[in-house]
């Protein structure tokens, strides 16, 4: 049985239409007109237990709506959802026991309570035995570096501290399925690393299934072997991260550090390579690795200029995703 099973899932919202101005507002009050917005458009996918899958798409693409249907907050307009074999909306309470959710920057902890008290309340809500709670708290406090924070009220915490606390609260009942909506947004690199490490361990130790929405492709690259891409409510890609990289990541960048400043004469480059920027003694090229190789370019540049150092950049996922949105996937 898959952990998450989604078949032809659809969510349509009725949105009241308002004409501009005060007259329009009055008209809307007495003769409301609605337009239908298809937020999630007949998508299908399934996640096996223990998978960590990235769910990506621009704002408004339908990611949050999908997650709200998977958590049981929203009911589907049509289609079929099963999480651990249950209908999450109809069996909301039973489903809630087995899932954990992080909603971006919203906190599920009590603003004024110290972290330890908040976590204890959460544990009581999920009926976790005290012994287990104490053991988990110790583990989480260690991995997420919460020791110093346990006696601190949430309202006094920094963004990164809040998110680490949030993750502890989400995983304290050892959920089998976890939905994370932007868990690393706005955080610094060190905190991001810690959070990713924590999620990896949880996944490995407990076989936790994770569906992760993010704008941070670092999250995806580090955690997910598979991605789902949604655009205007439609699922436009479901597959390995590697496949996308290979299909769209044909463009690489190459950086040169030159001796002396600037180019004296125009540079001759192999077909498929072009200069993207040039500032002082640094030169950046972009090339299509199908049409020419990195070594061809390197030797070509070195034959014309004196090179101190050079490096090859990995394909940048942001630009790949942009290409896919622009309709490059068919």
């Amino acid at each position, binding site marked *: 049985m898959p952990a998450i099973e989604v078949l032809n899932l659809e969510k349509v*919202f*009725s949105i009241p239409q308002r004409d501009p101005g005060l007259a329009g507002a009055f008209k809307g009050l007495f003769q409301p007109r609605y337009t239908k917005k298809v937020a999630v458009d007949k998508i299908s996918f399934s996640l096996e237990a223990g998978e960590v899958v990235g769910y990506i798409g621009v704002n408004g693409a339908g990611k949050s*709506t999908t997650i*709200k249907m998977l*958590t*049981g*907050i*929203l*009911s589907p*307009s049509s289609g079929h959802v099963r999480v651990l074999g249950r209908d999450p*909306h109809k069996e*909301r*309470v*039973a489903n*809630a*026991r087995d*899932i954990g*959710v992080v*909603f971006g920057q*919203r906190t*599920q902890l*009590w603003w*004024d*309570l110290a972290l330890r*008290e908040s976590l*204890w*309340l959460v544990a*009581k*809500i*999920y*009926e976790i035995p005290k012994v287990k709670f104490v053991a988990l708290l110790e583990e989480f406090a260690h991995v997420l570096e919460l020791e110093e924070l346990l006696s601190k009220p949430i309202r006094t915490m920094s963004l990164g501290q809040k998110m680490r606390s949030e993750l502890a609260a989400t995983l304290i009942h050892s959920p089998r399925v976890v939905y994370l909506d932007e868990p690393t947004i706005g955080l610094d690199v060190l905190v991001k690393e810690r959070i990713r490490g924590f999620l990896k361990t949880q996944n490995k130790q407990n076989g936790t299934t994770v569906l992760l929405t993010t704008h941070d492709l670092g999250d995806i690259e580090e955690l997910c072997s598979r991605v789902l891409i949604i655009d205007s409510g439609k699922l436009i890609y479901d597959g390995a991260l590697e496949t996308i990289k290979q299909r769209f990541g044909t463009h690489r960048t190459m950086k040169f550090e030159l001796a002396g400043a600037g180019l004296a004469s125009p540079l001759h480059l192999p077909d498929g390579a072009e200069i993207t920027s040039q500032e002082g003694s640094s030169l950046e090229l972009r090339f299509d690795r199908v049409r020419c190789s990195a070594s061809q370019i390197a030797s070509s540049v070195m034959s014309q200029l004196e090179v101190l150092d050079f490096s090859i950049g990995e394909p940048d996922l942001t630009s790949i995703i942009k290409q896919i949105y622009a309709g490059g996937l068919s």
Partner: protein
Amino acid sequence: MRYLELYGLFFVQRLKVFLEYRLSFLIGASSTFFMQAGGLFAIWAVMRVTPNLLGWSFDQVLLLYGMVALARSFELMFANNLWVVGQHYIRSGDFDRFLVRPINPLFHLIADRFNHDGIGNFLIGLVVVIRSSLSLNIDWNLEKVLCMVLAALGGGLVFIALNLITCVSAFWIVDSAPVTLAVHEWHEFAKYPLSMYSSQIKTALTFVVPYGLVSYYPALFVLGRDSSFLAFASPFMGMGLMLIGYALWNVGLRRYGSTGS
């Protein structure tokens, strides 16, 4: 049982926070005091002009006032979040938090915040009731004591139930506070004897927005003026209204599930 334990835990945590914020606690308590003092002053002013209000003396009207304050204090303490479910929870999306937890969302909403301002109301209500009943030389017996206790508890239920019924509108219009206020303000009538009002309003205050059951009818009984069953009706009416409120709440929840706002 489990919910009772959970409520206790929520409550204790909340209490710790109050103790931490002594200043806010004091401000809350004193604002309650000033509001209640204002209310009492208004009654004093009215009764100075008409010392005998259709056969009701100042102390008797004070008894009504105290009973309303007492009953209302339960709503203030235990169910204050019903006022702000739209503004604080639905609008911000925090309501979703209740729906991903394995407990009843209405319980979670109510337990989420014990409101300490209610304590002041409770104490003032208690003092006013005791003071007025002392100077009224009420001939207390078991029935009368029971009537007062039931009026306070059942009255609290009436207050909470009416707020529950009206707060459900938050699922449609988000900010339900004005709707709740429109109904809630009727409790002001119950601070005076219902015999003052036209029969329609009296009927409304007995059966529709039954704040009259909180003060007027139990007071009639305790003062030995009347022994209508209405003196004991508030717990039943309160429970009935709670059931209606809970049914409506579930309709609202279904709507939330389809619109998400």
